[in-house]
């Protein structure tokens, strides 16, 4: 390819690399600043606000966080909600997506329309809020952080597309051998769709882990506060954590450091698994955008 060796092309290529290096760094810098700050001594943080490279390296912020019961409790709530939520959502969503991927199902288009309408029109916040608090009595329960997100129509359609890519012959031969719809779903379709299920599972896990809309609306008890809502309270009120702490135990809670350390712990799991799970997200987005 001659053109790739021309001077103008090489110039363009270098600028392009520079451009992406700058953007790539810009995407990571805020994270690195908070990471650096989480290892900085509180006194320096109070003065400077942040530290990309800590002047006085200390683990004190993390030590404090791990001793703060309210923060640990929040992590427990978030982990519980994410694990139970993701598994239940995956179950209910795939149980709905599978029948809708079977062309012989009689009222298939009717049910598809039924799901589609929920993407086009909504009753709004107020009726939804009153339904959950007054009629379903879910306020201040663990369930309210899980149940309202059990089926995301977008995820359902993506999963349905995945199921549709499984060759019909495989499912049909199992049916001829006498397996019912449920048996063939469980023994044949599920094992063949692990990439699809992983993708949708990750979408759900990310949604549950990062969510604060449900807790903002329905959680008042500190015991049920997920980590995102706790962070929100810490950020809008720096003394929020110190006000909750038994003062005899700590001389001083490093409020800035605790905020930084809690943030890092909350994105730590994502940061660590992200390079390995990225490809599933790419796959899900690609299918989702084509099938809509």
């Amino acid at each position, binding site marked *: 390819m001659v053109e790739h060796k021309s001077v103008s092309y090489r110039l363009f290529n270098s600028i392009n690399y520079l*451009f992406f290096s700058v953007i790539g760094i810009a995407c990571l810098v805020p994270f690195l600043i908070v990471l650096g700050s989480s290892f900085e001594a509180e006194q320096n943080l109070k003065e400077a606000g942040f530290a990309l490279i800590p002047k006085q390296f200390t683990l004190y912020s993390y030590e404090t966080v791990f001793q703060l019961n309210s923060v640990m409790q929040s992590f427990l709530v978030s982990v519980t909600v994410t694990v139970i939520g993701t598994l239940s959502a995956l179950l209910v969503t795939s149980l709905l997506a599978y029948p809708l991927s079977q062309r012989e199902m009689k009222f298939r288009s009717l049910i598809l329309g039924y799901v589609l309408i929920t993407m086009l029109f909504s009753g709004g916040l107020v009726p939804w809020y009153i339904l959950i608090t007054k009629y379903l009595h879910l306020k201040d329960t663990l369930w309210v952080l899980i149940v309202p997100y059990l089926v995301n129509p977008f995820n359902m359609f993506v999963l349905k597309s995945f199921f549709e890519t499984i060759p019909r012959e495989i499912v049909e031969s199992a049916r001829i051998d006498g397996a019912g719809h449920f048996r063939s779903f469980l023994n044949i379709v599920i094992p063949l769709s692990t990439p699809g299920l992983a993708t949708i599972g990750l979408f759900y896990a990310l949604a549950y882990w990062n969510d604060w809309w449900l807790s903002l609306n329905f959680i008042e008890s500190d015991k049920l506060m997920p980590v995102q809502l706790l*962070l929100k309270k810490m950020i809008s009120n720096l003394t929020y954590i110190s006000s909750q702490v038994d003062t005899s135990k700590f001389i001083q809670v490093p409020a800035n450091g605790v905020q930084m350390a809690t943030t890092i712990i909350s994105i730590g799991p994502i940061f660590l698994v992200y390079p390995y799970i990225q490809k599933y997200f790419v796959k899900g987005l690609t299918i989702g955008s084509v099938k809509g």
Partner: protein
Amino acid sequence: MNAKTRARTAKSLLPGQGTLYLMALPGILFFFIFSYLPMFGVILAFKNYNFAGGIFGSPWAGFDNFEFFFTSPDLYRITFNTLFLNFLFIVFGTLAAVVTAVLLNEIRSKVSARIFQTFIFFPYFISWIVVSLFLGTFLSSERGIINQLLSAIGLDRVEFMNSPGLWPAILVVVYLWKSTGYGLVIYLAAITGINPEYYEAARIDGASRFQQIIRILLPQLRPTVLILLILAVGRIFYGDFGMIYALVGDNGQLYPTTDVIDTYVFRSLRTYGDIGMTSAVGLYQSLMGFLMVVLANWISKKLSDEKKGVLY
């Protein structure tokens, strides 16, 4: 008809399909409870709600709730902010995603391209709450990075937290930072899907790389851009609550440029507890949103000359 013949009739109608419906049942129930029941709740907009009476027992209020909202200056402000901010997000978001996708596609080393994509996609995985902490380290008045830089080079500090005029731009920058990776992934997939024979033919005709981008790549990308644009237009009446409330919160000084329908609705419900008026605003949003979806779908049908639009 005895039970046996009834069962047989049902079976002949739906040969072995009972299981399929049984499997779908939890999902169907979910949408009935969490999507369809609230739709009936729109009657709240026409009621004078009290807790004891609930949705059905409260007295009717006619159009009082709407009158209050439609005569207040809030209607114009929050509608404008919602549409204007979403318009900025759509325009700049699409441009940024398409440009980065095209440029990233020019990077021949697969490893480098993968690393760049990994970096740019990363912010998509961060919650808005954490983004608000990131933003705080840049914008806070005393210790923020930007103000420290400004005073280091002898310029005046900027009070970001009470300068509403700056916030549409700030929100666009944050939006691009968080969402460009998402669009990039989608457009890059569309670019990789282009038949290589087109490029081959163009190369034989002596087209430069730049000409290939203009004449082949961009036109081939058009359908994907249109689909995403149309979907975004369908949602233009819905502000991103998670983003705006995390970044702006209860800072009333910024409301003139940042208060959108969704944050307004949330505040009216949770702070003022005005059920009737809030429902009226919610219904206004749902109806306008529905109209936009129908319009967007109609446009997509016209553009593609197909019987089916993007959505239905």
